[in-house]
């Protein structure tokens, strides 16, 4: 079983600046994935980035990158050059790599972009 903690209910950032959203988790699995999903006002769930737990290198996807600290069970999301379209709820979710198990979501962080 996994638990997820997103300690920042709300964050705001100036357009073009950088912001980091935090996530900590607990899992008994040895092999797992970590995901960040974005939920804009349309409420569609959109995958932002994923990290394989066995990889030491942090994942990067254009302006989005993660800081994965496996020992600390921390998985933060950094958004560089923030854009108005980045405004959304962001959910962190670990998932076991075994048997295509369910995603366990955190409570989310609402990100506001200030023009």
């Amino acid at each position, binding site marked *: 079983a996994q638990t997820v903690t997103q300690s920042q209910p709300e964050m705001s950032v100036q357009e073009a600046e950088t912001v980091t959203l935090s996530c900590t988790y607990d899992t008994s699995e040895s092999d797992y994935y970590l995901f960040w999903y974005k939920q804009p006002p349309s409420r*569609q*769930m959109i995958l932002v980035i994923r990290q394989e737990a066995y990889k030491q290198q942090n994942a990067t996807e254009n302006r989005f990158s993660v800081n994965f600290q496996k020992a600390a069970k921390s998985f933060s999301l950094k958004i560089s050059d923030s854009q108005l379209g980045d405004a959304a709820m962001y959910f962190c979710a670990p998932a076991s790599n075994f048997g*295509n198990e369910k995603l366990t*979501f955190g409570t*989310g962080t609402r990100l506001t972009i200030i023009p």
Partner: protein
Amino acid sequence: EPEVTQTPSHQVTQMGQEVILRCVPISNHLYFYWYRQILGQKVEFLVSFYNNEISEKSEIFDDQFSVERPDGSNFTLKIRSTKLEDSAMYFCASTSGGAVNEQFFGPGTRLTVL
């Protein structure tokens, strides 16, 4: 690009009525999921489905809920007798079952129970 689709986008029903929410997963995917999100809360897992049977279900998924894959394309969630607290956004998701377990979500169905 393939996508998960859901119908209807918004369903309004009276308490006690049966509703069926429909999903068409991505065609070569093998694992299917339903999640729900009560307004302002986190996304919660309901049920997973593989090889024509339930793989796992949460405590929320009680006897009022059922899932079915009636043909090769649709994946449905039925709520037999809706309650006010069933009002939520319901998301369908699917994955191919490969190494990555990346789940693709549909746009959701907003269910309003009056």
